[in-house]
């Protein structure tokens, strides 16, 4: 086959130079002959193409049969192995390794912190190591270790039971509580380098509410393709948010989420939360929390790489029992984030929150962000924020954040 092609090629390549030497009337004849030759050449080429295509299809079929009869590669873990295709002997052992990724989080801070606890000027804070793999046909496991300069802690570590009956999904272990929306997000999925004030003041501090226990989530059918999910979480009584005086004191969280597409380009995500747990002031005193969260997203799919808007808002209410007085504290934030170009996005936020243990004090302030993401794996973000604290002082700060992701490609946050 090849010999014939190359022969034809040589003939065709040689032809024009030969033709140039002929007298003019012979040229026309030669041209005709050349055209005829070219036609034949193209015809046979097309025929050969077809044969090659047929053979390729046949080969593909054979490969398919071979693939179908060959043993399945071991667990095709959710984030598939990073390494070479199946059959590479040196790589077989890595199939059983969990998918691993590291998300680094460097923060630099400048400005006037007022009398508030100043953030360090530069810190590699809360970098995350994630390990995840499918355990067996019924479960997967995820472990998220948060590394700060001062040590390591388990941010989350849980098993998800994915094969339960009755549309249930269970998680067992340590996890971010499903209270509101922002509290469930890891730092790299949040649109800001910090936590909004209502999380800090009412949900236990900068890290938010993380509990250890069991979570059970069921789908509740609603008409017209509306997603609706109810989650019940039962955690041990002590965390950054709650404090148990006895082992039998537990913390509870109920979350109900409704999500609906408003067309291909936009959707609405609503959540209602209720939580209760011991606050440790007395043996029987507790704190109850109510929350409402709403997220509206707009992303024109065809221009999705370049444009998008996310509007968020959350309101929390905290009722903290204490022997002298019951504290009713309210907190909320609202934010808007816009993607401006493939690599650029910007956002604004306003936050206002009373303090859980003293309803007469409240902190508030605006913030704006600008984000530059050269790739999916690297992101630079600047935030200018002002916080007016209840004590009367004001902090105006610039937070610069650099995030990088290495290792297995994780899912994009939603």
């Amino acid at each position, binding site marked *: 086959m090849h010999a014939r092609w190359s022969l034809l090629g040589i003939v065709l390549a040689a032809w024009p130079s030969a033709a140039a030497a002929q007298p003019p009337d012979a040229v026309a004849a030669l041209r005709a002959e050349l055209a005829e030759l070219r036609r034949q050449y193209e015809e046979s080429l097309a025929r050969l193409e077809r044969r090659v295509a047929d053979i*390729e299809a046949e080969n593909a079929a054979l490969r398919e049969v071979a693939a179908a009869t060959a043993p399945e590669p071991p667990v095709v873990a959710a984030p598939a192995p990073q390494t070479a295709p199946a059959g590479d002997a040196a790589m077989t052992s890595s199939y059983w390794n969990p998918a691993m990724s590291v998300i680094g989080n460097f923060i630099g801070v400048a400005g006037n912190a007022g009398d508030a606890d100043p953030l360090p000027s530069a810190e590699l804070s809360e970098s995350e190591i994630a390990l995840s793999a499918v355990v067996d046909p*019924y479960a997967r496991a995820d472990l998220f270790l948060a590394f700060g300069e001062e040590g390591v802690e388990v941010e989350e570590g849980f098993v998800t039971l994915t094969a339960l009956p009755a549309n249930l999904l269970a998680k067992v272990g340590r996890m971010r509580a499903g209270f509101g929306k922002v509290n469930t997000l890891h730092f790299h999925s949040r649109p800001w380098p910090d936590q909004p004030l209502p999380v800090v003041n009412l949900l236990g501090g900068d890290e938010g509410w993380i509990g250890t226990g069991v979570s059970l989530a069921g789908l509740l059918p609603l008409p017209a*393709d509306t997603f609706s*999910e109810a989650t019940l979480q039962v955690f041990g009584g002590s965390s950054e948010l709650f404090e148990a005086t006895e082992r039998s004191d537990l913390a509870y969280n109920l979350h109900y989420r409704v999500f609906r597409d408003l067309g291909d380009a936009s959707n609405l995500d609503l959540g209602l939360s209720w939580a209760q747990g011991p606050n440790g002031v007395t043996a029987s005193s507790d704190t109850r929390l109510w929350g409402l969260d709403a997220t509206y997203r707009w992303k024109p799919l065809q221009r999705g790489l370049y444009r998008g808007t996310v509007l968020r808002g959350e309101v929390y209410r905290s009722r903290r029992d204490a022997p002298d007085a019951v504290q009713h504290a309210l907190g909320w934030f609202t934010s808007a984030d816009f993607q401006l170009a493939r690599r650029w996005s910007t956002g604004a936020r306003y936050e206002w929150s009373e303090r859980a243990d003293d309803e007469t004090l409240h902190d508030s302030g605006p913030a704006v962000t600008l984000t530059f993401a050269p*790739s999916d794996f690297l992101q630079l973000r600047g935030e200018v924020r002002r916080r007016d604290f209840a004590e009367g002082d004001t902090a105006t700060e610039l937070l610069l954040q650099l995030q990088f992701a290495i290792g297995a490609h994780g899912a994009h946050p939603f």
Partner: protein
Amino acid sequence: LLSVLALASVPSATGAAAATAKMRIVTTLQDLSSIAAAVGGDRVDTFALAKGYQDPHFVDAKPSFVLQLSRADLLIVAGLELEVGYLPPLVDQSRNAEIHPGARGYLDASRGCDVLQRPSGPVTRAMGDVHPQGNPHYWTDPANGRVIARAIAARLAELDPDGKAAYERGLAAFDSELDRKEKEWDQKLAPWFGTKVVSFHNSWPNFAKRFRLDVVGHIEPKPGIPPTPSHTLEIIQLIERERIPLILVEPYFDTKTPKYIAGKTGATVVTLYPSVGGTEEITDYFALFDVNVDALVAALEGRR
């Protein structure tokens, strides 16, 4: 506790497929839905997560997709890590053990297909967003479409044995229509075999191999990295040096840089659709090639 829950889940896994209604197929791409619909006919309902006009690498993991997946009998994915950014959490939340990787209701359409550009050496992200298992845009070769159709027919027959004959008929009809169409596409493109082109993203190795286009460069300096001035200049020089007539752009990329390059070089910008649904006319897998082949021919003839 774990083992009790695990045991409790077993009956649901076996009972789910017993439905007498249509087979519910969820695919990640509209291309796969189109092929599944051609094979399955009126025995199946299909739903595609990604729209043909959006970048298939960047699909949002919307809870509404969880709902679709929770009801699915069969999930068909393109594989090769194309869906790594959104599918795993959706499948985990689907509560549908039948569609997890490794289960009968999970079909990786890339298996058995002719997949190109598998990196042979070490892979790092300095190369951009590379796919270590090969280029995932393989369905743009009709020969792979055939392989996918066969795999779908086989899997459907396994999940729904009563429909075996119907699926075989569907497959045969798909095959012969593809035969007829392939001759037509070949005939149209034959005069242009060997044409050199530049494409925005590296989406076309299979299409180019099948229809003898020569993709000599990409507007993205590396996969997933947007155009840079220095690389754009290199592409302009390449187009001028090699007299490249066409710049192929997927419908979801900004045409600013391609148009700028076209303005500098005289090359023609052609929107080529990687997927069914890329534009309204592309209603099925055959129309995908119809539209792309016609667009190529029209652009090339327009330059004569």
